[in-house]
C-alpha cells in the first residue's frame, strides 16, 4: 500500500493532469476513476458483476451536500466460506476520494450499513467490495449536486463543538436470536483541514474521526477507517443478531488520537 504522502502527491499530480483535460462540468464524469483505480487498486481486476446482490443506495441528488446518506446492502449472508472482508467507498470528485474502508467478518451475518458523507460536487460514488477470496466487485451511483446554498459545511459549528465527544448507541429493543438494527454515532466537528478561519487567517487543522470499531460480546462486528468525507457527527447504522447476552461496545479514535467509547448491555 502507498504511504499517505505519496498517495496525496500522486493524486494531486493526476488531478492536475485530468483537469487540463476535463471538458464540460455538467456531464456525467468518469474521468477521475481510471486514475483513482490505479492509485488505490493498482492493477487488480475489479468486476462490475454484483448488481443483483450488492445494493448501493444513494440519493440521485445531494439534498443537503453536508449530509448525503449512503446505504450498502448485501443480499448474500456472510458465511465462514464466503464473506465480504472489506468495503471501500470512493467518492470520485471529493477532495480526498478514498472515503471509507469497512472491515467485516462473518460474525455480522448481514451487511446493511448506512452512513453519511459530504459531497463537494456532483460526482460518482462507488463501493468496491473485497471478498475473503480476494475478488473485487464494484457498484456505483451518480449523485447530482444540490441547490446552491447547500454547502458541505457545518450549520452550527458552536453547537457541534459544545457536544464534542458525546456518543450514542441507539437500537430497537433487542431480542436474542433476532436481527436488530442499531446505530453508533459520535458528535464530532470532523474538520477536514480545508476550512479557512478568517479570524486567525489559517486553515483549521484537520480534526476528524479516523476509526470506529464495534464489538459485541467480545467479538468484532465491524470497524471502519474513515476519511475526511464523513459528515460531521459521524454515524453508522448496521444490523446484527445477538445470540447471547453481552455488551455492545463502540470505540472511536480521532486524528488527535483521542479515544471515545460507549457501550450497551443486552
Amino acid at each position: 500500500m502507498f504511504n499517505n504522502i505519496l498517495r496525496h502527491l500522486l493524486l494531486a499530480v493526476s488531478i492536475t493532469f485530468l483537469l487540463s483535460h476535463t471538458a464540460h462540468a455538467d456531464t456525467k464524469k468518469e474521468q477521475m476513476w481510471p486514475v483513482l483505480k490505479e492509485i488505490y487498486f493498482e492493477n487488480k481486476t475489479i468486476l462490475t458483476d454484483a448488481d443483483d446482490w450488492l445494493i448501493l443506495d444513494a440519493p440521485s441528488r445531494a439534498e443537503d451536500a453536508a449530509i448525503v446518506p449512503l446505504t450498502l446492502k448485501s443480499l448474500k449472508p456472510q458465511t465462514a466460506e464466503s464473506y465480504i472482508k472489506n468495503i471501500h467507498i470512493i467518492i470520485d470528485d471529493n477532495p480526498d476520494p478514498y472515503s471509507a474502508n469497512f472491515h467485516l467478518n462473518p460474525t455480522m451475518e448481514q451487511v446493511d450499513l448506512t452512513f453519511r458523507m459530504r459531497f463537494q460536487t456532483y460526482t460518482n460514488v462507488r463501493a468496491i467490495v473485497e471478498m475473503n477470496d480476494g475478488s473485487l466487485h464494484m457498484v456505483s451511483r451518480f449523485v447530482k449536486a444540490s441547490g446552491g446554498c447547500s454547502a458541505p459545511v457545518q450549520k452550527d459549528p458552536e453547537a457541534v463543538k459544545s457536544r464534542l465527544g458525546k456518543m450514542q448507541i441507539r437500537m430497537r429493543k433487542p431480542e436474542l436470536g433476532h436481527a436488530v438494527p442499531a446505530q453508533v454515532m459520535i458528535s464530532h466537528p470532523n474538520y477536514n483541514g480545508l476550512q479557512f478561519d478568517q479570524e486567525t487567517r489559517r486553515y483549521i487543522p484537520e480534526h476528524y474521526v479516523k476509526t470506529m470499531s464495534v464489538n459485541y460480546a467480545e467479538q468484532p462486528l465491524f470497524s471502519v477507517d474513515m476519511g475526511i468525507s464523513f459528515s460531521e457527527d459521524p454515524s453508522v447504522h448496521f444490523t446484527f443478531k445477538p445470540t447471547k447476552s453481552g455488551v455492545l461496545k463502540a470505540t472511536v479514535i480521532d486524528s488527535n488520537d483521542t479515544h471515545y467509547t460507549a457501550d450497551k448491555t443486552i
Partner: protein
Amino acid sequence: MPYLTKNSVKLLMKCCLLMVSVTAQISHADNGYVVNEVSEGIFFHEGVHEDATEANQGKIANVGFIIGNDCIAVIDSGGSYFEGKSLLAAIRNHSDLPICYVINTHVHPDHILGNAVFKNPQTTFVGSAKLPAAMAARGSFYETRFKEILGEAYGNAEIIAPTQLIIVGEPQIIDLGERKLTLIAFPTAHTDNDLVVLDNNTKTLWTGDLLFVERIPALDGSINGWLDAIEELKGMDIATVIPGHGPVLHQDWKAALEREKNYFILIRQQLREIINDMGTINQATENVGVSEKDKWLLFEEYHKRNVTSAFTELEWE
C-alpha cells in the same frame, strides 16, 4: 421632504400615500428592475420564486434599501453582482445620499453576492457576529458553484464580510438621520447568522429568511431554533413585514409566521417518530411532511433537504 428625490412626481405620490397607506409605489430603474415602496422611504425588490439561474441573474430574494435624512442603508445586496448593480441604479433613481450601511441578513448567496457593488470607504458592512465565520467556511464553495450557476451575471462578485457585528442578545441601533434602525441577531434558526432589521419610524421589519412566504422555507440551521425565533418575532410590535422571500405583509404577517411554524411542527413530530423507531434519513425523506406538498412553492427542491437537516439535529435530542 426629508430626503432628496429626482422626480417631483414622486413627491406628490408620497403625499397620496398618507391617504392610501397600503398602496405600494412601484418604480422601474432603467433596466426593468422593479422596486416597491412599502413604507415611507423603504423600498424593496421582490425576488422570483425560483432557484438562481443565469436567466434570473440570482434575483430570487427580497432585497432593498431604507432612506434616511443623512444616508441610506442597503438591506441585502442581491444574488449576483448584476443584481447589486440593478439595486444601486434603483437607489440612485430615488436618492443621491451616500450609502452608509450594507446590512446582510445572513450568509446565503442570494442575499450577499451584490456586496462588491457597494464596496466604498464610506460604506460599512453590517451583519451577525457569526456571519464572518460562515462566509469564510462557505465562501470558496459559493464562489465555485455560483460562477457555474450564474455565468456572466456572477460578474465581479466578492464575498465581503461585515466589520460592524451584531451579537445575539445585544441589539444595536444605527441612525440614518431622523431614522433609527434596530438590528437584532438571532440564535441559530434559518442559519447560525440570522439578523433582522426594524425601522422604528414605520414599524417595518425586514425578517431576512426567518420568514418565507409562498416559497418553502429552507432549513440550514436549527429547526428548534427557528421555531423559537418564530415565537420571538410574533411578540414584536410590527405594522409591516418584508419577508426574505415572498410578498410584503401588513395585517396578515402573524398568519404567515403561523404557516411556517405549522410546517416545522409537523415535520418535527413525524421525524421524532421515525428517529425513535431507528429509521434512517432515507425513510424520513420519503415519508415526512408529504402532506405539505401543495402548500409551498419549490417543495420538491427543498423539502427533502429540510427533512435531512432536521433529522441530524433531532437525533441528538
